């Protein structure tokens, strides 16, 4: 299965949900206020934020009125273009070696699983990979990560449960320097973004990496559960404030989570989505592609 078709297959549920409603809507005759109201309803129920929805719909409405357009197919294209524009970034996140990737996020979004997948992906690209198990808080988190490291065939640096997370990072950097490892991936404990002391711990890890390994390219990626609602915005905003985010990994996209969520996020915060998680198997990770994503939604 090609990359395109795989994403498309995965997104078919997203598509089924959103486009079924859209098709129903487009099947109606007139393009009037009712049409746009319903368009708003659809986007909001797909977890697009109210503000983004209003902006998108206004934009389309304006254009359609200006061009005296009555053709629904054309309005679909307008919508596609609008959605695409909001999530397409000129700058893509490219991982250049030597790289340090720190994955952050709230509890239960799938950080550890994503790291397993990323490790496997880089390993397949013939890059040497080390994982740092800096989630020293959650029960058995390091064990879970060890299983993933074995599956991906990469090295793992870990300490005992309850150890200082920054110490794990420090040791991992040491080891990576000595072995000239291409990619170091740091797993961090899930933390709710409102817990300032835990965010401080994260900042400390950030400082350790910058101080001990300045020659590496440092990427901080936030893992977001595709099923999250409007709270995703707060999450990205707070983590971004704390450590400065380079990209978003959207996990659990194999569920029925609606695509609208990403659109809204990128619309309001300028942080690109770089990977999507599409299942529980080790290969279930893809580069994010705005065009494919929007195409697959319809």
């Amino acid at each position, binding site marked *: 299965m090609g990359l395109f078709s795989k994403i498309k297959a995965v997104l078919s549920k997203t598509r089924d949900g959103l486009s079924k409603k859209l098709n129903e809507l487009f099947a109606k005759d007139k393009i009037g206020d009712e049409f746009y109201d319903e368009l708003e309803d659809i986007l909001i129920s797909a977890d697009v934020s109210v503000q983004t929805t209003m902006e998108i719909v206004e934009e389309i409405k304006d254009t359609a009125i200006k061009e005296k357009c009555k053709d629904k197919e054309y309005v679909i294209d307008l919508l596609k273009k609008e959605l695409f524009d909001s999530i397409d970034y000129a700058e893509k996140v490219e991982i250049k070696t030597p790289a340090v990737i720190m994955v952050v996020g709230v509890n239960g979004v799938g950080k550890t699983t994503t790291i397993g997948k990323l490790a496997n992906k880089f390993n397949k690209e013939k890059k040497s990979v080390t994982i740092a198990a800096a989630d020293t808080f959650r029960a058995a988190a390091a064990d*879970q990560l060890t299983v993933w490291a074995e599956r991906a065939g990469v090295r793992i640096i870990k300490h005992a449960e309850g150890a200082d997370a920054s110490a794990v990072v420090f040791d991992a950097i040491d080891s990576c320097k000595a072995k000239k490892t291409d990619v170091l991936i740091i797993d961090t404990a899930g933390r*709710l973004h*409102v817990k300032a002391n835990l965010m401080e711990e994260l900042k400390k890890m950030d400082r350790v990496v910058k101080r001990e390994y300045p020659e590496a390219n440092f990427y901080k990626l936030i893992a977001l559960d595709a099923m999250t609602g409007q709270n995703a915005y707060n999450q990205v905003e707070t983590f971004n404030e704390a450590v400065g985010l380079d990209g978003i990994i959207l996990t659990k996209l194999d569920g029925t989570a609606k695509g609208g969520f990403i659109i809204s996020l990128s619309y309001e915060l300028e942080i690109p989505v770089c990977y999507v998680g599409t299942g529980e198997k080790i290969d279930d990770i893809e580069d994010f592609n705005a065009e494919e994503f929007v195409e697959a939604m319809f």
Partner: protein
Amino acid sequence: MSPTQQVIKIVNEELIDLMGSANSKLGVSSNPPTVIMMSGLQGAGKTTLVGKLGMMLKKQGKKPLLVACDVYRPSAINQLKVVGEKAGCEVFERGQGNPVKIAKEGVSHAKSFGFDTVIIDTAGRLQIDEVLMKELEEIKAEVNPEEILLVVDSMTGQVAVEVADTFNKRLEVTGLVLTKLDGDTRGGATLSMKAVTGKPIKFCSVGEKLGDLEPFYPDRMANRILGMGDVLTLIEKAQDAVTEEQAKKMEKKFRENSFTLDDFLTQFETMSKMGGISSVLSMLPGMGSKIKIKEGDIDESKMLSMKAIIQSMTMRERENPQIINSSRKNRIALGSGTSVQEVNRVLKQFEQTKQMMKQMKNNRMFRF
């Protein structure tokens, strides 16, 4: 009451009405052991909740057995074992076997070893995963659970409706549990889930420690959704943290204005028992949502040094702080590993508190 307040009041009442009856308890089977089964998406917080429920039941004098049926996620069994150990509950596991069989064996193990409650941890699954949903149905048929709890992340968006609906249709869940409510989410999805399933919300999970489990109160949730604070929870936490005897003693001190540094210390300890200043503040009306209080904004480590300072004083000094002169201050600072400035600060805070109490005593609102 202003028109705005009236509207809020009406909305508030409607919300409470929608979220239904308060304080649902866990059912107990007439034919022990009582089986409680978890269900939910990946990462909702099921395993942690199993530990929390186990600890809660233990506190109620029950003997729960935790059964590890998440055979898919790497190390989920280990996690349950660690959680179980912390909660002081035995964990039943059969490695990566067949979950339906493990559940069945777990229940018969409970029967033969005198456990009165069995909590079954299951793997997280998407509601559209036919194979795994079927597995849940099979477990249900095999062990006939008294309670099937659907565990839902309170940050979930619109998809919560579909998730709750599907799980409910497949399993006929008996109740919902909201997790991660210690974040800044308003938890509006609660409304939809309650409305679509008609099932009660039984518990709220509010932290990573095993004690962080609360019953669900619709009125408080409504306040949260509207951002109106949560005074009731605050009062309850206070009741948990302070014994009646302590309260009476404190009341007397208030009346006689004989509040000492020792009492000051006790107050701070009470505060930290209630989850720290930030947790207490966030429950006050108008504080929770308007002012973003983050843990640590109020430096809880300062409270530790305050404790050290007071404990470095002699009993006489604690009762008569006015005798603390500069040489005493030097000694206290040395003893507590702080500085004279910090000792001064604590003494000043104590004086302010005392002043405040005087005022409160004269204020009818705070009649004790």
